[in-house]
């Protein structure tokens, strides 16, 4: 038995350790100051896919991402770690998509891929933390979903067994393929790059990355495995009314760089005397003790 697995991945700005230069003076985000990374939980998802590939030889792992051509970076990264190939879904028409418009576009791309058993992605992306795109894709494709997955135990006769970690504990569930699985950050970390795969896929690219370089185009033309798919809205037959801003029911009314109502903070000098006075005060007013 071999499986066709689609890994949903997103290239995200690294919002975890934002430095002081991450916000511009006018309160907008300085994207240039944030490195673009493979969304962490999508790496956990990729690992589950690669484990399945090992369990069921002949399985195929395809990384699917939506974003600018630059997002091919994470498809390559996926290939270095064991994925067979990938697709970047890229079109100006997708700009301004909320989660619903994003899931619409991605589900159109999944339909075009056509032959799939498992669609797997991270639970959520660190730039939005919504955890909505996975279930919305499942709904659009009319298939079941298993969210908060921690481990895919295996597939038997078209039935997958998955361990989920939720607030109240651990649940083991079974469901028939095809389906969508979203993976928690508590799942196994992704394996590192494989030296051979790195060698093999180093020059993999989407067409627009090599548009100005005929030599590279010729090189890739002779090696089809280096060709990362680059699909537009038209190539996945997307209805433009459902894409981008037009297809997004949610609108951003306003974005603020929050200014906290500053309290009159008391500065406590870092001296023995002042620290002891503070502790005594907190004890006296029954805050502690």
């Amino acid at each position, binding site marked *: 038995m071999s499986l066709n697995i689609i890994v949903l991945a997103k290239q995200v700005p690294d919002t975890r350790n934002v430095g002081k230069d991450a916000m511009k003076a006018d309160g907008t985000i300085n994207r240039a100051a944030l490195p673009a990374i493979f969304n962490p939980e999508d790496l956990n998802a990729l690992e589950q896919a690669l484990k399945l590939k090992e369990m069921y030889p002949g399985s195929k792992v395809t990384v699917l991402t939506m974003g600018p051509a630059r997002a091919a970076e994470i498809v390559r990264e996926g290939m270095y770690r064991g994925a067979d190939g990938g697709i970047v879904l890229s079109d100006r028409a997708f700009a301004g998509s909320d989660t619903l418009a994003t899931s619409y576009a991605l589900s159109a791309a999944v339909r075009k891929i056509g032959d799939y058993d498992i669609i797997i992605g991270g639970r959520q992306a660190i730039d939005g*933390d919504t955890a*909505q795109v996975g279930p919305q894709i499942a709904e659009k494709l009319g298939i079941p979903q298993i969210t908060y997955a921690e481990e895919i135990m295996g597939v038997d006769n078209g039935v997958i067994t998955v361990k*989920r970690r939720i607030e109240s504990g651990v649940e*083991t569930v079974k469901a028939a393929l095809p389906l969508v699985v979203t993976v928690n950050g508590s799942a196994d970390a992704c394996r590192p790059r494989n030296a051979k795969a790195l060698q093999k896929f180093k020059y993999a690219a989407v067409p627009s990355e090599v548009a100005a370089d005929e030599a590279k185009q010729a090189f890739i033309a002779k090696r089809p495995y280096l060709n990362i798919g680059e699909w537009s809205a038209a190539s996945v037959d997307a209805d433009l009314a459902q894409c981008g801003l037009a297809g997004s029911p949610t609108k951003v009314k306003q974005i*603020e*760089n929050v200014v906290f109502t500053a*309290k009159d903070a008391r500065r*406590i000098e870092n001296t023995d005397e002042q620290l002891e006075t503070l502790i005594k005060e907190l004890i006296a007013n029954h805050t502690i003790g």
Partner: protein
Amino acid sequence: MTDKNNLIVYCEYEDGKVADVSLELLTKGRQLADKLGIKLEAVVAGSNLKDIEKQIFPYGVDTIYKVDDDRLYPYTSLPHSSILINLFREIQPRIAFMGATSIGRDLGPRVSSALHSGLTADCTALEIGDYTDAKTGKEYKDLLYQIRPAFGGNIVATIVNPECRPQMATVREGVMKKEARDSNYVGKVVELDVNKYTRPEDFVVEIIDRHVEKSKVNLKGSPIIVAGGYGVGSKENFELLQKLADTLGAEVGASRAAVDAGWIDHDRQIGQTGVTVRPKLYIACGISGQIQHIAGMQDSSIIISINSDPNAPINTIADYVITGKIEDVVPRLIKYYKKNSK
């Protein structure tokens, strides 16, 4: 069932008890429904739901939709989604809330996708207000403002759904206050037939094993919290915080950055994507103060910030600011507490 365009809350329950997060949402829902002059409704799906309304009516709920069937508990995505999708098509709620729990975050997106309605996750505030579309100039009255930190908590966004209904939002436990309206409040109960609202194929996902673990961490109930951020610097330094917490009878919490660094378990994370707390005393150690964190602790009565950066943003909301290194300040706080407490 002719009532339409009201505000509805999906209620979760476990062990016969309606979840706190659902009751908190009913409290907020009642306030907003009053403001809009509409009814507050609740929907609950599960098994053994006899008398569940007694827990729900006191929050000022006018109508409870109840779907009682053994197959609806424990929760699985498809039947619960089908119930909400079909019910919402019928009663066309203006607003729908659910908890930002593993259930609400599984269910909400599926329902919003089927209804093509906007959903905003992990809101930290919900208000009613007007909106003018900047492009078309069209004005909308009394929309739901769904307010949430975004972009890793570096900004706060106000989201609206001008055209699509219901306007859907999820909120984490502890963010809204829970307050019953009237213990004698009684609305009506509408029992729904599970077979009318679900399809047989909705029951394809089977739970074969369920292992419930009670959380050992009680951040929400702790009057004192010692929390650490990225500035704590290491797992070892977190042990210092644990010592201070043990000395004061406090719980240890953390910012997301510290959790991501692997210094402490994620169930101790405080903030928009963690737990919201309102302790008597909050000691923030090496926490810079991203909005996403502050959203989860700003209502603490007293905030002490210990940070080597005198200009850390958190200092602006702190009552006491100590500029210094964790490993230098914390042991001395322990020492002076021991010396001065009886």
